[in-house]
């Protein structure tokens, strides 16, 4: 396997894309613009997964998030009219409190960081292993294998969750069942 190419450059490029995309998601008036910004963020995140040697999660991210969930979002945005919504107030009355709460959370993150790192490096780099060429097979072993399948039961529960979600969505969205 080859060593990664230009990692800092790609990391900062993708990170900037993600942050800018995230800011656009929460500030745009038009929901379609927000959705497009979110799609950009999700795709940049898929690229970051590739940089973290997790190609299978990246593939799932593209096919499920960008290709599935976001299309559903766009579909619903187009179904409900938004001409009126664009002219209305965008933020609710508690926006000041909300931003204060988020700032407090951010302060908490920084506080934890500064108290835990006193002079030592967090998460020292171990020896590098490029496990990407067998990534899908290894994940499948964790999910389905009879011997190593730690998550087999959780996987079945996840499928049940999806079934419930499908039925719930149909019940909710249909006028008359």
């Amino acid at each position, binding site marked *: 396997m080859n060593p990664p190419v230009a990692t800092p450059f790609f990391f900062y490029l993708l990170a900037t894309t993600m942050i800018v995309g995230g800011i656009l998601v929460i500030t745009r008036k038009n929901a379609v613009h927000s959705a497009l910004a979110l799609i950009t963020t999700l795709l940049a995140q898929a690229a970051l997964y590739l940089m973290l040697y997790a190609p299978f999660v990246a593939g799932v991210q593209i096919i499920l998030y960008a290709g599935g969930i976001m299309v559903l979002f766009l579909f619903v945005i187009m179904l*409900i009219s938004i001409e009126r919504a664009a002219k209305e107030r965008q933020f609710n009355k508690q926006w000041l409190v909300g931003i204060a709460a988020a700032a407090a959370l951010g302060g908490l993150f920084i506080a934890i960081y500064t108290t835990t790192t006193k002079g030592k490096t967090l998460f020292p780099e171990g020896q590098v292993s490029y496990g990407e060429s067998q990534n899908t097979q290894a994940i499948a072993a964790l999910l389905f294998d009879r011997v190593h399948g730690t998550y087999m039961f959780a996987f079945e529960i996840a499928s049940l969750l999806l079934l419930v979600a499908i039925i719930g969505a149909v019940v909710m969205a249909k006028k008359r069942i």
Partner: protein
Amino acid sequence: MEAMLHITTLHYLVLGAALFLLGVIGVLTRRNVVIVLMSIELILNAVNLNLVAFSRYWQGMPGHLGGPGALHGQVFAIFVITDAAAEAAVGLGILIAFFRNKETVNVDEVNLLKW
């Protein structure tokens, strides 16, 4: 500068925290339900980024928790994505039912117990 150019797990965690905060601000301040749901997706993605970054970290660690087979973070990320799909389906279903009854998509107008 040296610390900036060598990408470690911490960089990914900082990025995840920033995305998480953006998502929280979106959920707490926006009125449009669709954008609130999208902000929830941002939060879930921030969590996913952390999980996958930690999975990468453990792959380089010795011991029975680490090693090249330590993909638990990635498996968790897949479960979170599954959950996000279910949440989006149900959330948008509720949104459509709500819009059909009230002709609005604003969260602060959902304060009636009955209509």
